[in-house]
């Protein structure tokens, strides 16, 4: 840290945010690869994708969408709070965001275990008996929501660190670019879900 600080004589928040945005674009393209796979297979097996999507519960998906949208709101508000110097409010808002993230994951856990209990999981005899389009649909379902859930977990860790940094004063009213970066990451997780939701839950 000290060596880095020595070479950086001035602070450049715009540059830091630029780096974060560039990183978000790589995340976008990472999921983009999966969207390409999804698009091609859906194009090849439109009916089987529709049939397979009936297995998903739209209500669970909608609830999770609302949870993530609201968590995006709270993390955005926490930045306004730190800009106004309201340290505790900001920490509380981040805490709420993390609780929402947990709720999302719990929801996801029950959804996955329900699928597994009715025999839909990779290499299950139940799934292997289905037509190829449905096998691919559930393959993509597990991979895409799984990778997304992994990002939710990473986002939680990042936000937890931001909370600690606010408590120790490393993030403060004058210097909060780290919180902004964490928030940006969290919003990206939200945006990915905004697209995953209709593609998997709303096509039956």
């Amino acid at each position, binding site marked *: 840290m000290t060596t880095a600080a020595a*070479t950086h004589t001035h602070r450049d928040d715009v540059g830091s945010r630029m780096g974060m945005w560039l990183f978000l674009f790589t995340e976008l393209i990472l999921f983009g690869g999966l969207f390409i796979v999804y698009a091609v297979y859906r194009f090849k097996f439109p009916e089987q994708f529709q049939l397979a999507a009936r297995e998903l519960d739209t209500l669970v998906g909608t609830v999770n969408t609302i949870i993530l949208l609201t968590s995006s709101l709270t993390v955005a508000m926490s930045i306004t709070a730190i800009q106004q110097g309201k340290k505790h409010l900001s920490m509380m808002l981040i805490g709420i965001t993390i609780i929402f993230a947990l709720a999302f994951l719990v929801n996801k856990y029950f959804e996955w275990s329900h699928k597994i209990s009715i025999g839909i999981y990779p290499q299950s005899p139940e799934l292997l008996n289905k037509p190829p389009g449905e096998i691919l649909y559930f393959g993509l379902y597990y991979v895409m929501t799984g990778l997304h859930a992994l990002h939710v977990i990473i986002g939680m860790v990042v936000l937890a660190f931001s909370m600690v940094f606010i408590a120790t004063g490393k993030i403060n009213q004058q210097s909060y670019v780290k919180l902004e970066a964490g928030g940006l990451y969290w919003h990206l997780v939200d945006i990915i879900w905004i697209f995953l939701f209709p593609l998997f839950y709303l096509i039956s």
Partner: protein
Amino acid sequence: MTTVARTPEPDYLHAQTNRKGIGAWIFSTDHKRIGILYLVSMLVFFIAAVTFGVLMRLEMLTPGKTIMQPQTYNTFFTLHGIMMIFLFIIPGLPAVFGNFLLPLMIGAKDVFFPRLNLFSWWLFITGGLLALVSLFLPGGPADTGWTFYVPYSIRTTTNVIPALMAAFILGFSSILTGLNFITTIHRMRAPGMDWFKMPLFIWSLYSTAWIQILATPIIGITLLLVTIERLFGVGIFDPTLGGDPVLYQHLFWIYSHPAVYIVILPGLGVVSEILPVFARRTIFGYKVIAYSSLSIAFIGSLVWAHHMFTVGMSNTGMFIFSLLTFLVSIPSAIKVFNWIATLYKGSIKIEVPFLFVLAFIFQFSIGGLTGLMLGVLSVNIHVQDTYFVVGHFHYVMFGGTGFGLFAAMHYWFPKIFGRMYKNVPAFVGWLLMTIGLNLLYFPFLIMGYMGMPRRYYDYLPQFQTYHVISTVGSWVLVLGIIIIFVNLILSLKKGAKAPMNPWGGKTLEWTVASPPPVENFHEIPIVEKGPYDYSEYEIKPEIAK
């Protein structure tokens, strides 16, 4: 630390640091030290990969078995490919010379995210070691070729997963370097250095960094998908589960074709940097060269499926991708013409870096022109998966960027290490490398055109003459490489002290001491002139009258 001790400031190689010994290097956030870290680690992988290559050539000396078993041969070409591509040529110019020179050339004290920069190197070395470890794990080294094509990569029992993970981690390292460079170029240019006063090497790094950011994630997710498919049997690409192996190839080449431009663009940048210095001539068409870097990066991202003309794509797809492939040759040719035009009426001074650049232009042109042949649909079907493709590829990668790397090594060696190397051995090394490379790869083009398939362990007797010439070429090439390395390594200690600006370069890195001080610049310079202003050498028209 920043303001005291102005006058006898130590250079970055000898500076006092908190840590001692190797820790002062592998935990340093100084971009110059990180550049050296990349240089050393990359050269280790390069030597390993060259060894695999030479052994493969030796195996091909005679038909049938010469020195190794077929499975060993499969492993060797896989490892040669993975190491050369992911560990040597992709990080080669950007990570080594980009790291060292980017801040110096734009008048900055470091890159924008110094600690992230160090982290990238750690990822690089982790990925490299993982690739090495996978050789010795039970199951045996991967035998899929560097392309990891499904369904074979899902079925084979060899250690594909460690190799895939290695490539994934290396990709991540490449992404972080790319975003670091873009942010640095946008935010840290010295006052007065507007976009069109940047050295052309920086333009090429900038274009490269965009490809690194926007294309690498695709290979990341693709390799991850193959891993998941192997581990859990999830249906993605496996045809028995309804998957489409051709889709894998699309995703693989969406990254891997632009990766070719990650490799070649910095090489083109090095040429644009070195040529005007030794021609004592303002570079011809600066803006066009700068824009051509961007347009190569852009068009190069649209042509991937020309690797797949025989997999049974739709005719429309083949037509579109063939057309786009021809388009990418336009900006490449623009560069070559501009270099030639720069030499016209120049006061050319023959030095070793310049010779490497000349060989680069010659070999890159052969590689480029055979690339056009490959872009023609009918010819492509004839030579697909033959030595012709391998020859074309090596002409561009080694004859092009490899030589660019050696040119860069000889051009910036005095700046990086503060020593001069001996000219005669360097010249001999260059001569042997150039002869060896052409002896090695030109027969590939002929053999391939006659139908010799790539990756085959055995061949028909009528190809033997070409294989023998080619194998001899590999010995000459390696001899040249050895001479060059020995010369450079000896010069590290024994070479004469290098002056600040031995070649008469006009870019900012030549305005600081050799080797540069830790902080690069005492005061951030103010840039007024363009990077290649050699007008004082040029005869003014009114004087000529």
